[in-house]
C-alpha cells in the first residue's frame, strides 16, 4: 500500500488549499473587465438606492410650481420637471423602485420557474406535458402584451406590475431548469446517489438543484435587466407605478411632451434605465462565461 501512496503523490503535489467551484468562478469572473464594469454599475446603483435620503436634500414628492422645468443647475443638478420637482432626487429614489421591481420579480420568476421546471423535468409524463405546454402558451404572447393583460386584470399598480413581470418571465426559467434537469438526472452521480439509498427529495434538492443553478444565475442577472425595462414600459403606459412614485418609466411618459424644450426631463430617467440595464447585461454576460457549462471548452 505504501508503494501506491508514493506513486500518487506527484499527481497531487500542485494541489493547494481547497477551492470551491464558486470561488474558482469568481477568479475567472474577475478576469473579465466588462463584467467587472457591469458589477461596478450594479453596486453603484445599489448603494444609491440604499443611501437615497443621504444623497439629496429635496423631497421627491415636493412640488415647487415657481421653479417648473428648470435647467440643470447648482440647485437642481438634473433640473426640475413640470411640477417643479427635483429630477435628481426623483431618480435617486427611483433607483429603489427599479431595483426592487427588477430583482424581486426575477426572484419570483426563478422560484416559480425552478419548482415547475424541476417537477416537469424530473417526473416527466403528463406533468411535463401540462407544465411545458403552459410555458409554450405563455411564451406565445409578446412579453409586454401579456404583462399589460395581467395588469389590466389585476388593476394598475406597482405591485401588480411586479407580479405581471414575474409571471411573464416564469417560462424562461422554467424551460431552462427543465432542460438542465433532463440532462442531469441521467448523470452517473445521480444514479450513484440512488444506489447509495438517497430519497428522491434529497436527490432533487441536494444533487440536482445545485447543479442546475449556474445557467439560472446567468439568466437571472440578464432577466433583471429585462424586468427593469418591462416594468419601466408598464410605468410608461401608466399601468405600473402611480403618481407620485418616481418610477423611471413613468417619469419618461410624464415628461415626453416637454422633450423639445426641456430635454433633461427625459434624458436623465432614460440614461438611468439604460445604465442599470447595461450593468446587469454586462455582468450577466460575464457570469455566462463562468457558469454556463455550454460555454466551457
Amino acid at each position, binding site marked *: *500500500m505504501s508503494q501506491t501512496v508514493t506513486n500518487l503523490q506527484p499527481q497531487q503535489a500542485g494541489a493547494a488549499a481547497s*477551492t470551491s467551484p464558486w470561488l474558482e468562478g469568481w477568479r475567472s469572473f474577475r478576469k473579465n473587465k466588462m463584467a467587472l464594469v457591469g458589477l461596478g454599475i450594479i453596486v453603484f446603483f445599489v448603494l444609491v438606492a440604499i443611501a437615497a435620503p443621504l444623497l439629496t436634500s429635496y423631497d421627491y414628492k415636493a412640488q415647487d410650481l415657481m421653479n417648473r422645468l428648470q435647467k440643470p443647475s447648482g440647485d437642481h443638478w438634473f433640473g426640475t420637471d413640470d411640477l417643479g420637482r427635483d429630477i435628481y432626487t426623483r431618480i435617486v429614489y427611483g433607483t429603489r423602485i427599479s431595483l426592487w421591481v427588477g430583482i424581486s420579480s426575477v426572484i419570483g420568476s426563478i422560484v416559480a420557474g425552478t419548482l415547475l421546471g424541476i417537477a416537469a423535468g424530473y417526473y416527466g409524463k403528463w406533468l411535463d406535458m401540462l407544465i411545458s405546454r403552459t410555458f409554450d402558451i405563455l411564451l406565445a404572447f409578446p412579453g409586454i402584451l401579456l404583462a399589460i393583460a395581467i395588469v389590466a386584470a389585476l388593476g394598475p399598480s406597482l405591485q401588480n406590475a411586479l407580479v405581471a413581470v414575474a409571471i411573464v418571465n416564469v417560462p424562461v426559467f422554467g424551460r431552462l431548469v427543465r432542460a438542465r434537469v433532463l440532462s442531469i438526472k441521467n448523470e*452517473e452521480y445521480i444514479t*450513484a446517489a440512488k444506489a*447509495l439509498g438517497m430519497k428522491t427529495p434529497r436527490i432533487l434538492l441536494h444533487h440536482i438543484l445545485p447543479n442546475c443553478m449556474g445557467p439560472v444565475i446567468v439568466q437571472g442577472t440578464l432577466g433583471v435587466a429585462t424586468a427593469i425595462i418591462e416594468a419601466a414600459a408598464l410605468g410608461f403606459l401608466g399601468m405600473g407605478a402611480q403618481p407620485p412614485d418616481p418610477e423611471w418609466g413613468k417619469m419618461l411618459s410624464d415628461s415626453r411632451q416637454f422633450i423639445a424644450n426641456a430635454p433633461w426631463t427625459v434624458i436623465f430617467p432614460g440614461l438611468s434605465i439604460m445604465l442599470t440595464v447595461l450593468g446587469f447585461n454586462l455582468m450577466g454576460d460575464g457570469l455566462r462565461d463562468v457558469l454556463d457549462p455550454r460555454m466551457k471548452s
Partner: protein
Amino acid sequence: MGQTLLEIANLQTHFKTDRGVIPAVDGVDLTIRKGEIVGIVGESGCGKSVTSLSIMQLLPKPVGSIAGGSIRFKDEDIAKAGESRMRRIRGEEISMIFQEPMTSLNPLLTIGDQIAETLRIHRKISKKDAKAHAVAMLKKVGIPRAEQIVNEYPHRLSGGMRQRVMIAIALCCEPELLIADEPTTALDVTIQAQILDLMKKLNEETGTAILMITHDLGVVAEMCQRVVVMYAGKVVEEGTVEEVFRNPQHPYTKGLIRSIPRMEDDVRRLYSIKGSVPLPGTIKQGCRFAPRCEFAMDRCAAELPELVQSGEEAGHRSRCWLNG
C-alpha cells in the same frame, strides 16, 4: 464454503420499447456466498449490467422492469421489496460502484460531504463524527493527505483517485455486497491494477462480497473465486475461476479465452469470435450462441440446452449440447 448471501433464481428483466418487449436478462441464476468475489463476464449487450441494476432495483423506469424470478438477499426476496425497503438496503447492505469515476461524483460537493452524506443517511451520527469517519475511509482506500482531500472538490482529483473515493463511499456503511460494474474500464492500466489490488485487499479485510462485472477476463483471473459467463441474457457457463480457465466447457467461453492475447505466442492476428451478440429477443429458439458457434449442430438451432454439470469439478456447469 460460506453461507449464501445472494441467490438469484430465474431472473427475467424486460425492457419495453417501441419494438416490443425485449428480454435483456432471460432466466439468470447466480449465487454469491459471504465474502466471495464472483465475476460476471460477457460481451457488451449480454445482460451483465442489467443483472446488477436489477439487484439494486435501479432499472430505468418505466422502460425496464423485473418480469419474473427471485433475488434472495439473506432471507428476503428483494426483487419484490418496496422502494423504502430498497433505499435502506442500497448503500447500507448492498453498494455499487460504476464504470465512469469522472462523472460518478457530484461536482458541487466536497469529497468529505459526499461520504458523510451517505453515512448520515444510514447511521445516526453527528456531522463531526461523519467527517472523521470520512477521513478514516479515505485513508483506508489509500488516498494520501486524506485530511486535506476530504475538503477537496472532485474536479481536483484524477480518475484513479475518484474511483478510490467511490469505493470509500460505497464501503463506508460496511455493506455485505459490493457490485462493481466495470470499475476499472475507464482507467489507465497501471491505475487499474492498483484499484483491483485495493478491492481485493478490502474484500479480505472487511469480508464484503464483490460481484465484479467486467468484459475483461484478466480482471476475473486476478480477482475472482468464481466466474459466471453470460451470453445474450443467459448464463452459459459457471464454475470456479481455475476450473473454467483450465477446462472451459462452452464454446463461447473457449472463444473468449482464446481471444486473450498471449505474450508467449507468436501470432499475427488475434483470435476473435465471428459475428456479434444478437439483439436480445431476436433468437427465440434453440441455443443463442448457435449462429456464431463453430460446433453448431441441427439440434442447437431447435432446442435450448439446460445449464448442466460438466467438466470435472462439482458446481462447474455449462449450457451446451456437447456437454449434455
